[in-house]
């Protein structure tokens, strides 16, 4: 039997001011990262509701990553500080329920860090690929 190569599905939420611009810079510099990463633009990382993250897993995402401005650099002064607390608590809860902690990540990527953006995505995709398909937080209805 031939196994199809496993390609994870990664949803990346990027804040408009830093990380989305960082992703653009990665593009400008032609820094490759896997096409498994799909970016959703949000004004600020603090716009990301935990429900969006659960929704992504429900719909078949294998990993979710949030990228925002470095702490202290938020365009809206404090947004990423709230993100940091919210996600720390949410991820810890997911881990507590036995869901692999490697499927979630928060990374601070500035508009100047195109290389960091690409490297982060390469690393995260590799990490999720190693875990394989998301089974613990999946909704089988979405896989019919």
């Amino acid at each position: 039997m031939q196994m199809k190569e496993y390609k994870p599905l990664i949803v990346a939420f990027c804040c408009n001011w830093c990380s989305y611009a960082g992703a653009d810079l990665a593009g400008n510099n032609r820094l490759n990262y896997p096409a498994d990463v799909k970016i959703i633009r949000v004004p600020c990382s603090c716009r990301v509701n935990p429900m969006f993250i659960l929704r992504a897993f429900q719909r078949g995402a294998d990993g979710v990553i949030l990228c925002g401005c470095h702490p202290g650099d938020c365009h809206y002064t404090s947004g990423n500080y709230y993100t940091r607390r919210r996600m720390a608590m949410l991820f810890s809860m997911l881990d507590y329920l036995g869901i692999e902690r490697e499927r979630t990540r928060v990374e601070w990527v500035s508009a100047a860090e195109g290389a960091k953006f690409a490297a982060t995505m390469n690393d995260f995709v590799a990490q999720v690929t190693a875990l394989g398909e998301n089974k613990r937080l999946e909704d089988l209805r979405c896989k019919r």
Partner: protein
Amino acid sequence: MQRIGVFVCWCGSNIAGTVDVKAVAEALKAEPGVVYSTDYQYMCSQAGQNLIIDAVKEHNLTGLVICSCSPRMHEATFRKTAAAAGLNPYMVEIANIREQCSWVHKEMPVGTEKAIILGKAAVAKVNLNTPLTPGESPVTKRALVIGGGIAGIQTALDIADAGFPVDIVETKPTIGGKMAQLDKTFPTLDCAACILTPKMVDVAQHEKIRIFSYSEVTDVKGFVGNFDVTIKKKARFVDETKCTGCGDCVDKCPMKKNPNEFNMGMDNRSAIYIPFAQAVPKVATIDAGACTMLKKGKCGLCSKVCGAGAIDYTQKDEFIEEKYGAIVVATGFNPISMDKFDEYAYNQSKDVITSLEFERLTNAAGPTQGKLLRPSDGKHPHKIVFVQCVGSRCAACAEKGKEYCSKICCMYTAKHAMLTRDKYPDTEVYVFYIDVRTPGKNFDEFYRRAVEEYGVNYIKGMVGKIVPEGDVLKVQASDLISNKQLHIDADLVVLAAAIEPDKSARPLATMLTASMDTNDFFTEAHPKLRPVESPTAGVFLSGACQGPKDIPETVSQAGAAASKVIGLLCKDKLTGNPCIASANEMMCNGCSSCERVCPYGAITYSDKEFRMPDRTTQIRRVASVNPAVCQGCGACTVACPSGAMDLRGFANNQIMAEVDAICK
């Protein structure tokens, strides 16, 4: 249901090189809502934009998806295109298939597949887009400057010179602030009063400037362009309009034993007083706590000698309400209290003084007429020890000091040391320091002159203890470079106390909903790019309330703040960003979670009456977002447990639709 047009851009070969644009256009044609889909070499070109405009008209499109470069590049362009075609500009979404697709993926099938998914996400979002219109609000063309030090003075003058009325609110009886207390200024050694007092006079005489001295801001409502401010004019028991500042009352007042704040309590003033000769406004003020007439109803001498009849013992605090378009905070700083620094014996010996006290001791208008004399016995000190970083850079002693560098101490201590050696060459001067920090024009040269030309003894090390013994101060210190303990018998010790924001700043920040850091310095909207603006729209920062600063920096920041204010007041109307939060009142709990995370103070609450399902009415506390103040970050939308708060342009259902489209 929307009628969506999809426009896939080749961007020459930038996109078309790794993405099969025709396949993308074809695939998106099948998406729900899409009625037209096409591709073109350069969508952003005039021809490309015309193609979009024609398609909107031909196919009655209600929404547009542009698969192209980053929205950071051309979102504004395509919004204008939509507007030109008669669509609301916010009915456009961009699928970024260049920077985030064609440029980072090398293989055509991979790039094409991802581009289709990104396009589907954009289509899913546009399906839920609604037309958005930016709100408008008028601008009151008047500015308020809180604080009348050099920062407030400069800001007020610059704004007033541009033709806008400005009010200065100062808590003290006179403007002038800390700079008025200084003797000479580094590194040029020009006299502080000589450069400051003319500016104070300019303020007093400027037809666009009103000064509310001996006054405080007690309430701030409203938002950028439309602040309603209440100012409390504290009763000074002297009619400002009548007082000529002649000083007869001050001379006659029998209550002369009150510590003189202007001279840091090193001499006394009378109960009715004018802080200093060049005070602006130059009017007397009665210290209610010291005046026997006010306390016991006996005396009344000042009233008798006042030729102008300005004394009014019945005066009450007066509250003035005024509207402003912009508010500048210039509340300045104070040296921290030395009470907790027992090791320096500040409270045990009169001859341990702070640098600001030293300024007064060397100032010709000071308690000693500028002669450097010991406060304890009026003798000339022959050995002076300056201690730097008292309470600054003090991570380990956070309960009494500050973690930050107070920035100005190195330079003024060098100034003090140099001036002492210059005037009194028989005096030995020691300066103990952790580091000497001299970044600034002519700063290091100045410091080196103190060491090399004036022979000031700079010793790297900290003073451990000061013990008053007889008429000397036993200074125990360590010299870190030669690694030995030093014992110096000093006649005078000068402590370079850390500086901290004025105590009035914290309650003011609350009123303004302006954010502060943990040290109570006001936070700027962006540390690099918006250094003179508070995150709260319409509130600007000038001087040391934002962080420790010397005079030149303060003046330049004051000017910058003024230019931002002028830029704001020039406008007749403010146009907002339409992508802002709004609360669904039916679902709002009034719990204040959103208000707590809003960095701009854009959310307020009011009690509203609702018709309940059982046909009764109920009063509920609900949130509303001020569209002129909200910047659209979305922090509130997640803090809201019920989902009553949502963000236009990035609504919950839109983002979830994107998630769904990406994940299917």
